[in-house]
């Protein structure tokens, strides 16, 4: 336990230790300690109270001091204030006086004054407030603490403040910017700006604020300074939205105006009333090349005007206006002074002296008092327009020319159907004049029966607004003609209600007529097909019937419905002919058409013959879809045909009988005649008395005449039988004529007539032909002439004319001065047995066959004959031949002389049953150094030959008893193998017989009664070893063997198929016959290319047929012709080919087919 330190000290000092522990003491001590502590505490409390009182005093003192000072300051300030307040005239007051009362009095008076002033101020303020509240601006006045002092209703309205302006007063606005910023477009900027303005405290005017609702507000800020002290500010908001809008528009308009003024190509020049240029826009600069600076201030008319133009304009204006207009500015404005504007064309001269056309519009500019203050000239460059106008005019001209001169009709009609334009073609085609048409409605021209549909057609075009249409219709022209018009019509709408039609029309009358003709024809043919007696049948590829016409129904007896879909062949054709029909159907499939006859059974079961002409039927894509058949019932014709065939065969039989009769007759007549002529010839060689000589001569003439009549009859028979053949050889025409002359001269002499025959020098007169037929023709014609001429004579003239190589034209005319003929008779002159009348016949005699034979012969020689005759004046006969030129060196020798000259004795075997004929022949031949051995028939002859006697020539009669000449020849050639030349003697001059002779191996043939010359010539030919004619030589060689061909190759190839061989042979005959004539003809034309191609073609087939004789020649011909080498040898080879091939063909025909 611790005690108060002073106590402790006392204790420690005064009290022993032991006492210290005494509890009583201790308690005592504790009580003392307590006293100590209380003392301490009281002391502390006293101290504390004192210090507080001290402090309070101190503070009071200080306060008093401060107050005093303040008072002093206040008084000083008061003084100062009073001094300040004190007006200058109050100088007598001394404020430095300590006496405050003076000041107070002063202040009192001053306050009073102030009160009055304040009242005035309040009144003013009220006035101001009223003013502010009625302003068109929203006003907000704040004090320096941003408390609202004043606002007006407009401000509240502006910012949609619900409170009234009075309620607003006193509200703190320091946060208002942040609160109201959402009204503005740039809220942050608005806030920044306000704070900036408030910071600067400098007046800001005309701040533009854009509100989000589109309003634009103008804001003024006015800080309020009172005594240079900031005391608040005023916000003045004004709604300038409309004004702004208006301003913007104004700017736009101004810009536009500027753009127009400067951007335009128009030259705009403004002058004052005196014509001094005040403004010159960019357009003008551009147009004229002058700069504004160059011309402003210049007087118009200026450098860019044409003074002479101005002068002339002045003159015309003077005239127009009736008072004088001087050349000068007046010219431009004389009119516009009174009127609003005047527009004229002018010439401007550019700075580069180029002249341009302008359209100048001058208008006066007036002020508000309607006084003219200047002139505005607006000019447009119309140079290009001018050019374009000229161009347009020209093109319009051109267009009009085209339209007017068009070959088509061009016209326009308006919506009422009246013509508004027609071109000249329209006039020409309609026959109406332009004026007439222009007063007409288009429909008036249309032919009545077409009017309705035409109008309907065009109404439809108009209603449906089809831009173009084409239509054809007939019109009636002014003179009543009908013409068809085809027109393209273009619809052009002029406005919603108005339109016009432009038509381009052509006259299609011709085409229409043509179409109508075609239509009618089609109709006609369709009618024909439908109604014809021909049955028409269309079948598909399965042969099913697709269409039948009524004709087919009629001829078949079946109805169409019975036929459609059926197979016609199966229905109608008998089994035996089905194959034929099938083969025809196959042909259709190959695209071939042909016609054939087939027997059918109709529905009634009757047998009918149909002629069917079938053709494949294609669709329009060319695909075979079946066939079309036209069926003609030819049952009757068929019957006729059968009858005809019957009668033909009868006729042929009778013709054969006639031929046989003629052959027999000629033999029967010739044989004795032969004897008579021969005997007379022999008799005339005897020594006779003059009288006897005359008799013999007359007998000879009579027998010759008889012979010629007989020959004529034979000739005509041959001609009729097609048997007459020419014997071609080289001959001299002049010689023939000379012969004829010498023959006819005697006859002419008898009648006292002359006979003139001309000679030709220096021209070829050698030809290849049949000289004896020539002679025959000439003798006949001259003979006739002599016969029918009693006075004057006969003139024969001939001439030749060179034609293409190898040929000459030969003209021969025989004219007389005889009785002549009627024209009517001339027509019949070539008919058989015709003489002008029976009296003529009696008077002049003759068989009447001569001219017919002559004509036939001439035709055979490819010649022509023409007769001109005049009764009692004379007759002229002109013949014309085309003859191949002959070789004079190959003329037939004149002959028996040569036989004599050979001096060689000829051994001749004469086989002849007729005693007289033997006698004649012996007599003849004996004259020519011949030794004759006679045999009465073939058997005797063979006996003689068997006995080993050899002869140079055998003369063989053909018709003999016991064994005839044919049989004998066969035995001689085939059995006896004797090659002695055999000459047939025959009274029968028929070709068939001659061919048989040659075939049997005879070498020549002489007709009886023979002429010495001919017989001798033949003998001579056959006995000469060096024969000149290789063809005959080859023939002779060949004749001695059996056949000209060898079929072994063909047969081996065909494996002995006879059918095939026969077919091939007939093909060969057909082909070679044609080929041969082609070669001959081609060679005659010297067309070696064709000769080559044909010879090349037939070569293999000739090899196939084994024609050994031609193996080399055909190759020779082929080679020569390929090399285009013509030669004599080629010619001979071709002739050789002809001879051999002809004979081969004859043989083939007889032996193989």
């Amino acid at each position: 336990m611790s005690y108060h330190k002073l106590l402790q000290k006392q204790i420690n000092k005064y009290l022993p230790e032991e006492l210290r522990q005494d509890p009583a003491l201790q308690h005592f001590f504790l009580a003392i300690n307590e006293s100590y502590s209380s003392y301490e505490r009281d002391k502390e409390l006293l101290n504390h109270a004192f210090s507080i009182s001290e402090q309070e005093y101190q503070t009071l003192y200080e306060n008093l001091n401060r107050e005093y000072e303040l008072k002093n300051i206040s008084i000083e300030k008061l003084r100062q204030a009073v001094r300040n307040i004190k007006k200058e005239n109050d100088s007598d007051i001394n404020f430095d006086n300590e006496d405050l009362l003076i000041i107070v009095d002063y202040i009192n008076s001053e306050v009073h004054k102030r009160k009055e002033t304040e009242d005035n101020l309040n009144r003013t303020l009220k006035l101001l407030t009223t003013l502010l509240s009625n302003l068109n601006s929203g006003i907000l006045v704040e004090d320096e603490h941003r408390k609202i002092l004043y606002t007006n209703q407009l401000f509240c309205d502006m910012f949609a403040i619900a409170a009234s302006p009075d309620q607003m007063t006193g509200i703190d606005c320091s946060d208002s910017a942040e609160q109201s910023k959402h009204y503005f477009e740039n809220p942050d900027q608005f806030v920044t700006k306000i704070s900036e303005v408030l910071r600067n405290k400098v007046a800001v005017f005309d701040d533009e604020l854009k509100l989000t609702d589109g309003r634009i507000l103008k804001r003024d800020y006015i800080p309020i300074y009172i005594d240079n002290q900031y005391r608040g500010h005023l916000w003045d908001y004004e709604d300038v939205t409309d004004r702004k809008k208006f301003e913007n528009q104004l700017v736009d308009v101004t810009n536009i105006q500027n753009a127009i003024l400067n951007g335009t190509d128009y030259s705009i020049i403004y002058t004052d009333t005196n014509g001094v240029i005040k403004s010159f826009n960019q357009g003008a600069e551009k147009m004229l090349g002058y700069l504004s600076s160059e011309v402003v201030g210049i007087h118009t008319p200026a450098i860019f005007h044409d003074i002479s133009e101005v002068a002339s304009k002045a003159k015309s204006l003077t005239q127009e206006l009736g008072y004088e207009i001087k050349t000068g500015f007046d010219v431009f404005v004389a009119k516009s002074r009174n009127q609003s504007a005047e527009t004229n064309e002018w010439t401007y001269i550019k700075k580069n002296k180029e002249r341009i056309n302008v359209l100048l519009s001058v208008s006066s500019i007036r002020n508000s008092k309607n006084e003219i203050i200047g002139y505005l000239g607006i000019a447009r460059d119309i140079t290009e327009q001018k050019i374009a106008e000229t161009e347009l005019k020209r093109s319009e001209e051109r267009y009009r020319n085209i339209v007017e001169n068009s070959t088509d009709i061009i016209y326009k009609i308006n919506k009422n159907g009246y013509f508004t334009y027609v071109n000249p073609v329209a006039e020409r085609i309609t026959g109406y004049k332009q004026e007439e048409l222009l007063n007409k409605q288009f429909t008036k021209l249309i032919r009545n029966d077409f009017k309705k549909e035409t109008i309907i057609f065009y109404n439809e075009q108009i209603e449906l607004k089809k831009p173009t249409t084409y239509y054809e219709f007939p019109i009636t022209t002014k003179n009543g003609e009908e013409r068809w018009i085809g027109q393209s019509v273009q619809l052009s709408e002029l406005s919603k209600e108005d339109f016009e039609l432009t038509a381009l029309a052509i006259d299609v009358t011709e085409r229409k007529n043509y179409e109508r003709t075609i239509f009618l024809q089609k109709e006609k043919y369709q009618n024909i097909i439908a109604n014809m007696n021909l049955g028409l049948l269309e079948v598909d590829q399965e042969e099913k019937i697709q269409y039948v016409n009524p004709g087919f129904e009629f001829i078949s007896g079946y109805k169409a419905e019975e036929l459609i879909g059926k197979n016609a062949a199966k229905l109608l054709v008998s089994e035996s002919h089905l194959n034929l029909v099938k083969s025809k159907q196959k042909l259709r499939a190959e695209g071939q058409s042909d016609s054939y006859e087939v027997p059918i059974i109709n529905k009634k079961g009757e047998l009918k013959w149909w002629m069917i002409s079938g053709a494949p039927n294609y669709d329009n894509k060319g695909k075979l879809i079946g066939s079309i058949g036209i069926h003609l019932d030819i049952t009757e014709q068929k019957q006729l045909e059968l009858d005809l065939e019957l009668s033909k065969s009868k006729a042929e039989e009778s013709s054969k009988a006639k031929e046989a009769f003629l052959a027999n007759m000629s033999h029967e007549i010739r044989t004795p005649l032969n004897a008579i002529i021969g005997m007379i010839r022999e008799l005339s060689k005897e020594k006779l008395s003059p009288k006897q000589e005359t008799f013999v001569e007359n007998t000879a003439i009579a027998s010759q005449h008889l012979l010629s009549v007989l020959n004529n009859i034979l000739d005509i028979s041959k001609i009729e039988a097609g048997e007459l053949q020419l014997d071609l050889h080289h001959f001299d025409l002049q010689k023939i004529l000379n012969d004829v002359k010498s023959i006819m001269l005697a006859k002419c002499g008898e009648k006292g007539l002359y006979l003139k025959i001309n000679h030709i020098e220096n021209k070829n007169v050698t030809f290849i032909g049949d000289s004896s037929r020539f002679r025959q023709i000439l003798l006949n014609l001259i003979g006739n002439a002599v016969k029918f001429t009693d006075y004057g004579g006969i003139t024969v003239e001939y001439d030749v004319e060179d034609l293409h190589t190898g040929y000459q034209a030969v003209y021969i005319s025989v004219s007389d001065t005889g009785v002549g003929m009627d024209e009517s008779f001339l027509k019949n002159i070539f008919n058989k047995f015709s003489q002008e009348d029976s009296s003529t016949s009696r008077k002049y005699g003759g068989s009447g066959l001569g001219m017919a034979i002559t004509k036939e012969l001439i035709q055979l020689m490819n010649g022509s004959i023409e007769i001109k005759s005049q009764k009692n004046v004379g007759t002229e006969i002109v013949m014309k031949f085309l003859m191949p030129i002959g070789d004079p060196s190959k003329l037939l020798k004149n002959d028996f002389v040569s036989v004599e000259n050979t001096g060689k004795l000829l051994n001749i075997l004469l086989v002849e049953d007729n005693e007289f004929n033997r006698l004649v022949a012996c007599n003849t031949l004996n004259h020519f150094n011949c030794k004759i051995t006679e045999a009465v028939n073939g058997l005797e002859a063979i006996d003689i030959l068997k006995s080993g006697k050899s002869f140079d020539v055998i003369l063989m009669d053909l018709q003999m008893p016991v064994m005839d000449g044919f049989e004998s020849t066969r035995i001689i050639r085939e059995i006896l193998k004797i090659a002695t030349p055999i000459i047939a003697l025959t009274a029968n001059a028929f070709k068939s017989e001659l061919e048989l002779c040659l075939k049997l191996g005879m070498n020549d043939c002489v007709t009886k009664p023979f002429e010495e010359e001919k017989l001798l010539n033949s003998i001579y030919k056959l006995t000469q070893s060096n024969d000149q004619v290789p063809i005959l030589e080859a023939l002779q060689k060949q004749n001695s063997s059996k056949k000209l061909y060898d079929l072994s190759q063909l047969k081996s190839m065909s494996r002995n198929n006879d059918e095939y061989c026969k077919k091939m042979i007939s093909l060969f005959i057909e082909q070679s016959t044609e080929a041969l004539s082609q070669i001959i003809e081609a060679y005659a034309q010297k067309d070696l290319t064709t000769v080559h191609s044909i010879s090349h073609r037939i070569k293999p087939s000739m090899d196939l047929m084994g024609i050994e004789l031609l193996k080399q020649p055909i190759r020779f011909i082929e080679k020569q012709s390929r090399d285009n080498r013509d030669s004599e040898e080629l010619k001979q080879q071709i002739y050789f080919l002809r001879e051999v091939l002809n004979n081969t063909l004859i043989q083939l025909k007889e032996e193989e087919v």
Partner: protein
Amino acid sequence: MTHNVKVFLVDDDLLSLNTYRQGLENSGYKNIHLFLNGIICLNNLHQKPNIIFLNHEINDSSTFDLLKKIKQSLPSAYIILISREENIKVSIGAMKHGAFDYIVKGDDDIRKMNNVIERILSLNTI
């Protein structure tokens, strides 16, 4: 085998046609068809011949046209041109237009034709 080969012979010469047919028939080819002109031959290509012998006329370009048409319609067919005359141009032209061979008409046409057919058969494509 040989009996199945279908042969077309085209020639305007009936005699040649028949000769060739007989010759080929003798070699055992029985399926032979004759045509006198190219058009008919074309119209019968649906018969699908294996071999076609085509006669070529001197200076006749239509043969090549025909050849081309046949080749177009029936590419599988072997076409042999038979010409009357040896001509390099023709032979080249024939090959160019797709002919298999080219025979010049002469003395042993049939032997040549048989050879060609044998050659074709040895190709084993028919």
